[in-house]
Each structure stands twice: as structure tokens, then as C-alpha cells.
């Protein structure tokens, strides 16, 4: 109960800061829209490449990538906030004040989820307005957004672990770069089968590829690799939960 109380307080503070500060809110809203526009608009000709077979079309194909990207970067942006809190000294006061500190991590994760829900709501509306085809059923769409939610939780736990260990804004690239690489070493522009060379080999073993392929399957109404994708997402959440909680212990020891 005390954990939830702490989590609620931390989440409320983060959300209040984000939604009352345009310089924090706008980048997380604008970047996914911008990537969606640039990829779905500028690269739509890619759908004519021989062998490209995704019936809902290129806009839907890119929407799934942007959904996962916004989920992952929503988590990373929350990690920036944690680092900022510790750099300014607020984080240390929070550690002193919280009766149960695991609630701090839970609070940041809950705030990241709400933040992403707003972002993906806006991106979805824009995608539908520009004519994105949705072939999946309601259940398929629940699967798609649940995958995004899992990736958001995994990313915020990863970023939290880094922020709690390094406790400085200079940790930004450390949080961001691995997430960026994992996302872009997946089949971003064309399906896995059309990738050639080293990127195909890397994408094949990249766990995010499974999540991306499953997400695209949901939107197309032809679910594929569902069990594998959810297993990968679940494993990432479990792994990064330990990472974040060990980070919390590290911050506690630093005093």
C-alpha cells in the first residue's frame, strides 16, 4: 500500500511537470509525428519494390514502427527526467522521504505509460486522418497496443536503471543509443525478407524484429509470431526490472 502511495506521488509529479512544460511535452509528441510523416510520406514509393507484400500499405507498415519507437523513446525521455531529478538534488530528497523506495521506480514507470498513451493517441488519430488502412480486428489492435505498452515499460526500466546509477543528465546518450540501435537494426523500411547483407543477419537475431513483425501482423489482421513477440517483451521487462531495482540500490548506497 505504501509502495503504491509513493508511486502515485512520483507519477503525479512527473506528469504535472511534463504536461505543464511545453519544452518537455512537445518533443515527445512531435518526434513520433515527424518520423511518421517522413517515413510514411517520403518513402511510400518503397511499397513498389518487387517482393514488398503488406496489404494495408506503407503508411500502416511504418505506423507500427513509429508506435514501437514512440513507446521506447517515451520510456527514455522519462529516464532523462529521473537523471535531471538526481542532478538537481531532488532525487536524493525523494529517497529520504519515500517510506518504500520501490514505489519511486513504479511511479516513474506509471508516468511513462500515461505519457506514451497521450503520444500514441495523437499519432493514431493523425494516421487515421491521413488514410491509414487498418485490417486487424479489435482483438488484434489490443495485441498491437499491448506490445507497445510492454516496450514502453521495458524502455523506462532500462532508462531508470541507467539514470539511477549515473545520476547525471550526461547519461542521456547511454540511455538513448542502445535503444536507437535496437530499433533501427530491425526491419524498419522493408520486411525482413527484403533486407540484404549484414543488416539482414543482425535484424534476424534482433529481439525487436519479432515484436515489430508481430505488430505489423496484428495491424494487417494476420497475427504472426505472437507468442515469440510477447515472450521477448516479457523477458525484457523482467530483465530491466532487476536492472532498475539494482540501480535503485546503487542510488541508495551513493546517499
Amino acid at each position, binding site marked *: 500500500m505504501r509502495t503504491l502511495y509513493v508511486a502515485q506521488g512520483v507519477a503525479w509529479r512527473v506528469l504535472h511537470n511534463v504536461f505543464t512544460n511545453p*519544452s518537455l511535452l512537445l*518533443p515527445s509528441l*512531435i*518526434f513520433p509525428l*515527424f518520423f511518421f*510523416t*517522413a517515413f*510514411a*510520406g*517520403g*518513402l*511510400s*514509393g*518503397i*511499397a*513498389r*519494390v*518487387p*517482393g*514488398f507484400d503488406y496489404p494495408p500499405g506503407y503508411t500502416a507498415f511504418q505506423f507500427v514502427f513509429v508506435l514501437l519507437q514512440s513507446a521506447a523513446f517515451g520510456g527514455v525521455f522519462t529516464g532523462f527526467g529521473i537523471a535531471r531529478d538526481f542532478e538537481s538534488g531532488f532525487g536524493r530528497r525523494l529517497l529520504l522521504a519515500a517510506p518504500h523506495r520501490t514505489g519511486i521506480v513504479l511511479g516513474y514507470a506509471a508516468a511513462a505509460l500515461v505519457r506514451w498513451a497521450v503520444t500514441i493517441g495523437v499519432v493514431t488519430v493523425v494516421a487515421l486522418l491521413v488514410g491509414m488502412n487498418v485490417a486487424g480486428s479489435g482483438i488484434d489492435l489490443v495485441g498491437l497496443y499491448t506490445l507497445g505498452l510492454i516496450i514502453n515499460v521495458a524502455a523506462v526500466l532500462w532508462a531508470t536503471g541507467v539514470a539511477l546509477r549515473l545520476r547525471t543528465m550526461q547519461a542521456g*546518450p547511454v540511455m538513448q543509443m542502445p535503444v536507437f*540501435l535496437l530499433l*533501427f*537494426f530491425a*526491419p*524498419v*523500411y*522493408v520486411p525482413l525478407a*527484403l*533486407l*540484404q*547483407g*549484414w*543488416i539482414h543477419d543482425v535484424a534476424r537475431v534482433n529481439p525487436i524484429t519479432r515484436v515489430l513483425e508481430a505488430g505489423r501482423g496484428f495491424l494487417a489482421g494476420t497475427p504472426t509470431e505472437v507468442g515469440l513477440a510477447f515472450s521477448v517483451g516479457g523477458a525484457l521487462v523482467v530483465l530491466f526490472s532487476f536492472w532498475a531495482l539494482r540501480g535503485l540500490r546503487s542510488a541508495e548506497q551513493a546517499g
Partner: protein
Amino acid sequence: MTDAFADQVALLARRSVVRTARQPANVVFPLVFPLLLLAVNSSGLRSATHLPGFPTDSYLAFALAVPFIQGALFATMNAGTDLARDIQTGFLNRLALTPMRSIALLAGQLGGVMVMTLIQAAVWIAAGLLLGVHFAAGPLGIVVLFVYALLIGLGFGALGAFLALRTGSGEAIQGLFPVFFVFLFISSMALPRNLIETDWFRTAATINPVSYLLEGVRSLIIIGWDPEALGLGFGIGAVLAAVALSLATMALHTRMERT
């Protein structure tokens, strides 16, 4: 140019280079990030070369133009942030008390940007050659590419200096970075304009001057000597440099008056 003025510019250019070199993030990130994106995009979009009308069978050769513009964007940010820091720390105020001519500060700062631009261009060209890109315009084309990179670096560097002098804030400059990136992404960065199918995007890319800067670089790599692409690229680069330098000079005078 008098000897004294030349000495002032050389001193400040050296300061700019040393300051950049002492911050590894300012050297490594502008070199590594464009190369990383080049690797990802050139592999991920290789199948785009199968589109009818695609101008080359090597997407790497097509995409090699992008780091030149990305590097220039980083030059804008670095020049702007360094100059803003000079304003914030009071260096500009102290400079105003010396006999040093204020315009030497701008020239020196841009001199440092040009050195960084040269290093970046050498890295992009070397990476292309190592990965098997054939430069259609030959060795002379590579020389022209260096000149072109310097012109673009000068233009964007002066733009960064202008913004720094106007805002006096490093954070404001960093905040403008995404705006510049919009210009890069809404351009012919990923596909030739004639192969962009979405009408509004093709129109935006056609209006966007960054498309022509990219196409200038690209023409030397994949076409050879294309007078129209080179004329447009050099023309837009020259206009950008002239306008940005004028604006930066005026802003510098205003800033020094305030000081």
C-alpha cells in the same frame, strides 16, 4: 586584411578548434552518428535501388550525400553553442575591452567550424571509398566536393553564429536542432524527388533548399558533372552563406553595442 587582424582571426580559430577537440562528444558524435545512420539506411533501403528509375544500383552511393548535410547541421549547433557559451560566460564582454576587432571573433569561430567541416568531409569520402563507392566525377570531383562541403559548412556555421548572437543561449540553439532536422528529413534525402509518391511530400521536398544541397553532392558521386545540380547546389550554398554571414555580422554589431 592587416597582419594584426589576421593574427586575431588565427588565434580565435585556434581557440575554437582546441575547444572542440577538448570535448570528445563534440568530435565523436558528429562523426559517428552520421556514419551510423548511413550504415543503417544504406543497408535497410538497399532494395529501393530496384525501383524503376532509381539513378544508381548502389544505395550507399546515393545515401553518401546525407552525412555532408548532417555534418553541416552539427556545425551549426557546435558553432552556435560555443558562441552562446562565450556570451553566457562573459568572454564576449571581456573581448570588447581589448583592441581586438569584433568581426575577428566571428571569423575565428567560423575558421574553427571550417576545420571541423574539412575533417568530416575527409571521413565521409574515405568511408565511401573504403566501402566501394565509385565517385563518378573522379578525383577532381572529390576536390570539388571538399570545396562544396566548406561552402555549406560556412553557411550553416554562420547561421549557428547568428542564432547564438541573437538568443545568447546555448539551450535555445540546442532546442532549434530538431527544426533543422525537419528540413533534412522532408527532402530528397531517402529517395529521388521523382520517385516520391506522396504528392505533398514531393512538393515540400521540391521547395526545400536542402534537397538541392543534397543533389549537388549526389551528382558528383553518382552522375558525374551535372551542371544543373551543381549550379543549384553551389548557388543555394552561396546564398545561404552570404545571407547567414550578413545576419551574423549585424547581430554581432548589435550584441557588441549592448555589451
